[in-house]
């Protein structure tokens, strides 16, 4: 039924891996930003919120291009990182993970922010009267209550990262085994004579994975609601 080649399965595994890394690494930032957006007020907050949201509304190719001219090997930040720390993003799977992470970030932050906003802040005050300092109150009250929302955000980000194409291909191009994700593999196959059949098979794989991620995200989001109401 499925007669995908070694290279095609490599693309699937690479996509899963890149999406996983992108999601896990952006998680602490997602929680931090979500918390700040939900609980803090400061001068310039609207601008801050808009910038966070930007990757969602800008053309993905623009995001990829911006990454290329700042983090490319010969670009200012990129060459600094490469020369002093040996960290290279361009044309590496790490760059793909970075691009996917950035593109998926607004979705993750939004889900987390909403879940924190739904938590009564007075619960944290109550924890304080019981002897919990700010950190413990966050870890024992806020975090568990927002956890299902965090997981929902992670699944959503994962699904988005999995399907990322425009920013990725602009920033890290299409190198099989290194940066050729499912999307890039499908795209390549559409240009191969007789490649439609294989392209469709990959499409099916991609759709199945995305559907599973989205269904799980929905399930966790609903659990978040139930948990918050003490059920």
């Amino acid at each position: 039924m499925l007669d995908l080649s070694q290279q095609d399965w490599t693309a699937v595994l690479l996509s899963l891996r890149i999406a996983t890394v992108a999601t896990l690494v952006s998680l602490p930032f997602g929680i931090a930003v979500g918390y700040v957006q939900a609980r803090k007020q400061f001068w310039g907050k609207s601008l801050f919120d808009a910038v966070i949201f930007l990757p969602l509304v800008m053309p993905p190719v623009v995001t990829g291009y911006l990454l290329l001219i700042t983090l490319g090997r010969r670009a200012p930040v990129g060459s600094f990182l490469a020369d002093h720390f040996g960290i290279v993003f361009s044309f590496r799977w790490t760059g793909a993970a970075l691009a996917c992470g950035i593109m998926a970030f607004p979705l993750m932050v939004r889900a987390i922010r909403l879940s924190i906003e739904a938590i009564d802040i007075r619960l944290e005050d109550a924890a304080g009267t019981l002897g919990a300092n700010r950190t413990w109150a966050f870890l024992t009250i806020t975090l568990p209550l927002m956890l299902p929302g965090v997981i929902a955000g992670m699944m959503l980000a994962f699904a988005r990262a999995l399907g990322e194409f425009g920013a990725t291909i602009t920033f890290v191009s299409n190198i099989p085994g290194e940066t050729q994700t499912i999307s890039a593999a499908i795209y390549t196959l559409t240009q191969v004579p007789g490649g439609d059949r294989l392209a469709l098979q990959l499409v099916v794989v991609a759709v199945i994975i995305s559907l599973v991620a989205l269904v799980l995200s929905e399930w966790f989001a609903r659990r978040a609601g139930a948990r918050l109401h003490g059920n």
Partner: protein
Amino acid sequence: MFKRLPVILAFVAAFAFAPHIAAAQETLTVFAAASMKNALDDADATFTRTSGVKVTASYAASSALAKQIEQGAPADVFISADLKWMDYVAGKNLIKPDTRVNLLGNRLVLIAPADSKIGSVKIGQGFDIAKLAGSGRIAVADVKAVPAGLYAKAALEKLGSWAAAEPKLAQAENVRATLAFVARGETPLGIVYETDAKIEPKVKIVGAFPADSHPPVTYPVAVTASSKNAATARYLAFLRSSAAKAIFEKYGFSFLIKPVS
């Protein structure tokens, strides 16, 4: 379920951050023009069989590849579909000049979908390609940068067909995307290399552009300056061998040098 969450997360993290399953074999990265795909895949397979070196090939328009190399892409070998883009990277000292070789040649052809009513045409001075396309468009590669598009534009200009053809062009990202347009019947005509037309059963060649209507289609090969890969010498030697010659000629490329082995 949540009690098991830390375990699940640990498992996921291990998968994500596990180092690339290191192949015990050597690898080589080639950036090659899109039109080389089938022939080069075939040649690379032979090379891997005989030398044990795994070849990873990234195919795209030569223009895109040259820009990527300029940005620091980790290619060991670059095969361009024209001299312009090889000169471009050479000018930026991105290749090892003493490894550069003009390896292959090709021809520019006019194609139509296999079931098209268009029969053979003679392409000469004053060739009315716009009329032939009728209400449809003519698929070409990006005429501003991609070699296949540059050759197509040069040919149409030389033949006096450019002015009428230009507004009817459907430009694609590279020559294989161009080929796909015609194969799917999206456009009634397209301009690609002869080698591309030969591997796509859904298109037929309806005409050949005269060799003097455009600069000769030449595929230079070179090792990149940043490459520290010891296998490049063997690879280039292979590309210049008669074994490789046979493979490339089978696909319709012309072999421009005398084979070295």
